[in-house]
């Protein structure tokens, strides 16, 4: 049986579509509360009438993408694409 590849996700960059509320400050704080996440960087890419597209950069050690995704969904937002992933060895 092949071994699972070793490595910890330390950074993910996501393209996210979110409502205007919660604000990017509250949004970043909520994402930062996810286990193993140490730093969150949210930048506005585009603003529409009801929504905004943001670049969400999540940094930490051993980030679980599904945990981040669950919080994003809980806040009424949607991940459009995973644009970058950085993995390190222990």
């Amino acid at each position, binding site marked *: 049986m092949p071994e699972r590849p070793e490595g910890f996700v330390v950074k993910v960059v996501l393209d996210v*579509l979110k*409502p*205007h*509320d*919660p*604000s990017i400050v*509250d949004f970043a704080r909520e994402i930062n509360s996810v286990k193993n996440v140490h730093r969150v960087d949210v930048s506005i890419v585009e603003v*529409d*009438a*009801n*929504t905004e597209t943001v670049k969400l950069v999540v940094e930490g050690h051993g980030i679980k993408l599904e945990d981040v995704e669950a919080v994003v*969904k*809980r*806040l*009424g*937002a*949607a991940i459009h694409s995973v644009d970058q992933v950085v993995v390190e060895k222990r």
Partner: protein
Amino acid sequence: MVAAKLLEFIRYLQRSIQYSGKAGMVRRYFFTNGFDGAMSMLGIVLGTSLLAGADNLTVATAGLGAALAMFLSGFMGTYATEVAESKLRIKELHDSMLIDVEHTEVGRAGKVGAVIAAFIQGLGSLIFSLTVLSPYLYAVNYGLAGQTAMLSSIALGLVTLFVLGASLGKLTRQSLMLTGAKMMGVGLITTVLIFVVEVLF
């Protein structure tokens, strides 16, 4: 344990009002309805107390009934409006994002935010109307001359309007004295008008 639960609940309410996008509106509602409550009660107190044969109990009972009605009318009116607004917002978000937003924290915040907005709106009118009525409530329980109660009520009403105006001025970064004086001026004009109408009829 209880304090921690209470703190968590307060944070949940704060988060709901933020995520529902109703934060600024709740503040406006509070002041608008506080103003409405104080002014209406000033009118009720003056109108009733100037009636021939009206005692303190009559004024207090009429005032309490009106305060309760204003609270419920404010609560239900705002609740119905805000729930409809929240539904529209969720529908617009759904159309823009093509995902189910209703069963997320944003969707739930819309419903909770509507209840909070309605409650604050009702509470604003209840607090300030009861403040204006309070001399009569005191008079009924502890005894006070009718005229003293009326004058105290007018004075409290004008002070309440000034405080409301000044608070609004502080929030909107205008002159506290000016906004306070404007609100109090409206109260003063209303008082004089009621006296004139009562004398004429």
